[in-house]
């Protein structure tokens, strides 16, 4: 099995120094932020266009992971809301024969108050999984253990526990899910840019970080605010207040 952290075949090293690991972690944070920003754009596209894009993503994932997607289609018809607490959009996944994925805007109090049901036109969710976007992405890609996240209270679930477990186990049974690359591949030129970004993001971010430390504090805070907006974090929508 490939090292789950090594997604780009062009990346050769198999032994990482602590510095290299930290650099890779920063690169991962960068691509996580990038994908979260992409998700944040969904509402601006309008319901129809975002549905078309997500349907394409789902078809692509089904082609790459036929075992898991066959299992998802064999499940009883149900809806799971995957709700990142630090992003402006949640994903509503319908499992069963009519497998589909929809983007659902989040307000300051989450989707429909964050409870099971009450999603307006998106329908009613049978179960909700909530957590920080980066953790949910790690979980969906099988990089992190869901039980461990649950024990640490980084993840909350409500509604049909069996449904969430079935979804988690089905996706975790897949190897080498790379949702960032898969999402990029439906976004045209980004697919070609992503491997280059992944190779270079770590060192470039290191240099930016070093430069940032030299800036006066007011300017540094201003940059952080801009970054938060770009990443789709809305004011007042932190895990604490959005829960």
């Amino acid at each position, binding site marked *: *099995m490939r090292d*789950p952290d090594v997604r780009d075949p062009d990346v050769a090293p198999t032994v990482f120094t602590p510095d290299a690991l930290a650099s890779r972690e920063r690169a991962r944070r960068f691509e996580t932020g990038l994908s979260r920003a992409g998700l944040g754009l969904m509402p601006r596209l309008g319901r129809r266009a975002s549905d078309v894009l997500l349907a394409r993503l789902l078809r692509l994932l089904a082609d790459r992971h036929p075992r898991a997607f066959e*299992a998802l289609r064999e499940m009883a018809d149900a809806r799971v809301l995957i709700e990142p607490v630090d992003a402006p959009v949640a994903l509503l996944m319908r499992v069963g024969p009519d497998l589909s994925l929809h983007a659902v805007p989040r307000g300051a109090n989450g989707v429909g108050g964050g409870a099971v049901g009450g999603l307006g036109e998106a329908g009613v969710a049978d179960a909700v999984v909530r957590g920080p976007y980066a953790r949910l992405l790690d979980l969906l890609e*099988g*990089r*992190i*253990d*869901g*039980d*461990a996240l*649950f*024990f*640490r*209270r980084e993840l*909350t*679930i*409500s*509604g*049909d*526990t*069996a*449904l*969430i*477990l*079935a*979804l*988690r*186990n*089905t996706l*975790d*049974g*897949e*190897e080498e899910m790379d949702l960032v690359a898969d999402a990029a591949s439906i976004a045209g030129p980004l697919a070609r840019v992503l491997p280059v970004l992944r190779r270079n993001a770590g060192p470039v971010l290191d240099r930016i970080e070093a430069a940032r430390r030299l800036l006066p504090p007011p300017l540094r805070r201003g940059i952080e605010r801009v970054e938060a907006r770009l990443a789709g974090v809305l004011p007042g929508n932190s895990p604490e207040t959005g*829960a």
Partner: protein
Amino acid sequence: MDNFELICPAGTPAALRAAVDAGADAVYLGFRDETNARNFPGLNFTRQDVADAVDYAHARRVEVYIAINTYPQAGNLGPWQKAVDDAARLKVDAVIMADPGLLAYAAKHHPDLRLHLSVQASAANVEAIRLYRDAFGVRRVVLPRVLTVPEIAKLNAEIDIETEVFVFGGLCPMAEGRCSLSSYATGLSPNKQGVCSPANHVRYEQRGGALASTLGGFTINVFGEGEQAGYPTLCKGRFVATGAGEGSGPAYLFEEPTSLNAMDLLPELKAAGVRALKIEGRQRGKAYIAAVVRAYREALETFAAGRPVPHIDLQAMVEGGTQTTGAYTRAWR
């Protein structure tokens, strides 16, 4: 010095590959039905998955064991006997079983199939273990998690089959195979249906900053804000004792949410004559499997080389945020 065998869990094909690649000597798994004690939604292996798993593992000199460790329902032996037949046909290296009738079936119809006695049989004394050896040819017993290391040493001195002990993961403090707590609350148990606290009977509720877990409609725990959570099992629930004095709040009755980690006890377990070390967690994700198996492989290699067992941090993986050596060092017993 012969090293321990490292026996690792897998709930999915991806988890099996993670275990093999991280250094397992054997991987144990179950079919996708009630014949095994981790019959959870979306988990486990189809017959074809098992065939592929055996190919993958054997190509890397790793063994595959199948757990058929629930007790067959009266009048419905078919699924359990078919599971044994299929395990033999698929050329797994051992089957892990608890029910005497099923052990007898396997011994009679598949005499070359290696039999291991599941922890679900709760065989914790010399007479019981000898009975399973003599009657069915059982070659290894997985010891229940209720014995101290000196008790294991004494047991090993008196039996002539291999022993396997849990060293990491979820900690069942009960007489395994005989616990009816889950059945009491839900009508379903690990012994018959392969599910302790079945997920379709579990609900989680946020109560302000607290997290409440309910099982079959009973609230069994409320974790305060910031407090690490555990599995929704009754043995790790908080209760108020009848007749407790005023002001007595809910408290853990049997066991706290905690995970077993016996890595520090490798020298003692070796001296006690243990042959194989088992990691719990077929229900866990492949990230857990890879991390824990890799850590234990490193510890075993270091130990085998005669160096001190290193401290490897597995804190991020444990239930309730705490680790214990469980009954192995429990002084009060």
